[in-house]
């Protein structure tokens, strides 16, 4: 089948964003610059293009292409690559480097990300930027290396202690692995926060065309908080301990306010064939690509089905989804887990639409095919209000 319509990307604040998601739009006149790379490599290239020169990590499948690429490239750029003693070591090296104001990153996969949660909480508390790429795998425990989306909760609900949030971006193509990595560094600096890129082995291991154009960098604030050696100026302290009367409460309210601004300004979502849809299919990352083809197949059968894809998982594009769902009346959530993002979908659409769920927990040995999703769409479509 042929996809009849290009996905329509919806930014809450389009003009200010440095990413440009619809890869096909940008191809004209640039064909000679297209590379053919793995998603993981594209993310590493995006980091370099973003000016990141410091990488700290620990080997784990299926993301090792990222440290392998950067261990090769960063020394050429006078950067630093450290294979740390542990994920804990790596995230704290990131904390230290970020505290000096440089752009730095780490990457890992689910079990390793669990270990990094301590550091992520401290970075969130100390308001330190930094990019964390999570090419997630299946669990719990050692689980397996299959593509999985079972770490949605961990990523978007504050995986560590202390009730914080970090922006979470969910690429679904090799181009987005690059673009959203660039965007992640901007968001990190703009909001002084760790930012997570959440993918899986599909987006990490597949190869697609990449146009490695650095996007224009957003106007970013000076890092007046970064430690640098005080010189003759005043002391700077990067910390998350607040023991003074009322200090910590005020700090938490300030962090909360920051999350509210993110919700207002930083939601990104993508819509495909939603205008007249009676059923909205939604899913993030790899599964959204499968769903996109399933939706196109459903359209060929004459079913009015559309696709809504959250690109930012935190902030979750509540308003855009509620709008699309309100028109349709029914939403089908598809995830590679037993039901996580569906909770945010329900909160977003409220009473405006019926929400149903189709989940494929990790370890089934194969991803759902477009045909399988189409089957689920057909069943749900029959129940949709006509």
């Amino acid at each position, binding site marked *: 089948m*042929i996809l009849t319509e290009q996905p329509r990307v919806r930014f809450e604040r389009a003009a200010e964003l440095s990413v440009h998601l619809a890869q096909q739009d940008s191809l004209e006149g640039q064909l000679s610059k297209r590379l053919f790379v793995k998603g993981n490599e594209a993310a590493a290239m995006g980091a370099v293009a973003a000016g990141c020169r410091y990488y700290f990590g620990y080997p784990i499948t299926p993301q090792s292409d990222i440290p392998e690429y950067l261990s090769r490239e960063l020394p050429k750029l006078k950067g630093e690559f450290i294979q740390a003693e542990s994920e804990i070591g790596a995230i704290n090296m990131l904390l230290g480097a970020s505290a000096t104001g440089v752009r730095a990153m780490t990457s890992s996969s689910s079990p390793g990300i669990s270990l990094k949660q301590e550091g992520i909480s401290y970075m969130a508390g100390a308001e330190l930027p930094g990019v964390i790429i999570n090419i997630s795998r299946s669990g719990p425990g050692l689980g397996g290396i299959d593509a999985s989306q079972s770490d949605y909760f961990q990523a978007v609900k504050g995986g560590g202690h202390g009730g914080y949030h970090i922006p979470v971006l969910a690429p679904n193509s090799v181009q987005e692995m690059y673009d959203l990595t660039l965007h992640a560094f901007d968001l990190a600096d703009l909001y002084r926060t760790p930012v997570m890129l959440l993918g899986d082995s*599909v987006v990490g291991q597949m190869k697609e065309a990449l146009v490695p154009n650095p996007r224009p960098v957003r106007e970013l604030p000076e890092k007046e908080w970064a430690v640098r050696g005080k010189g003759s100026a005043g002391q700077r302290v990067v910390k998350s301990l607040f023991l003074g009367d009322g200090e910590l409460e005020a700090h938490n309210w300030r962090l909360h306010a920051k999350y509210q601004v993110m919700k207002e300004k930083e939601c990104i979502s993508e819509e495909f064939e939603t205008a007249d849809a009676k059923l909205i299919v939604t899913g993030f990352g790899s599964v959204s690509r*499968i769903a996109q083809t399933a939706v196109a197949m459903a359209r060929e059968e004459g079913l009015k089905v559309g696709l809504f894809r959250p690109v930012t998982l935190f902030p979750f594009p509540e308003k855009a989804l509620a709008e699309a769902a309100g028109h349709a009346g029914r939403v089908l959530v598809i995830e590679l887990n037993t039901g996580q993002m569906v909770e945010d979908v329900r909160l977003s659409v409220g009473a405006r639409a019926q929400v149903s769920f189709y989940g494929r927990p990790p370890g089934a*040995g194969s991803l759902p*095919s477009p045909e399988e999703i189409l089957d689920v769409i057909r069943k749900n479509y029959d129940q949709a209000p006509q």
Partner: protein
Amino acid sequence: MRKDVLIAGFGGQGVLLAGNLLSYAAIEEGKNVSYFPAYGVEKRGGSATCTVVIADGAVGSPVVGQPSTLVVLNQASLERFGARVRPGGVCIVNSSLVDVCALGRDDIRIIPVPMNEIATELGDLRMVNMVALGAYAAVSGAVELATLAGALKEALPERNHKYIPANVKAIETGAQVASEKTA
């Protein structure tokens, strides 16, 4: 235009290289492409598989459930993936190693190509993947043969560029034999 193919064989038959080369050629022709190697448990048992989706517009799913074309280089792959070919689809078979009788499908077109013999005759059995790719290009029209030939320098490491002429010949021969079968 949207074409998808599942290429399957055993390790050493150059399945992943074939997928890569096809992808490079598609990119060269200005198309969009998604190449996805076998993952997780599908990787077990010494088999090598990959899917390639080529499209003028958005690629959509990199995961292919029912391929419109299956290229099988060994018997085990036919048994494993033969039933998945979309009705009305095509199965290009390495008839040197694969007996298609067991498949029992009359709703797909089966194109037998003696890939091992062709590759051996051309001087190197390892070119079986190029023969297969030539056959696929001819049958599907997904990419031009000339583009495939031109993309070899991208897909092969520089130390293997000396084998490009032989590989081009293998692609062309695979295409020619497959065309004769479909004529």
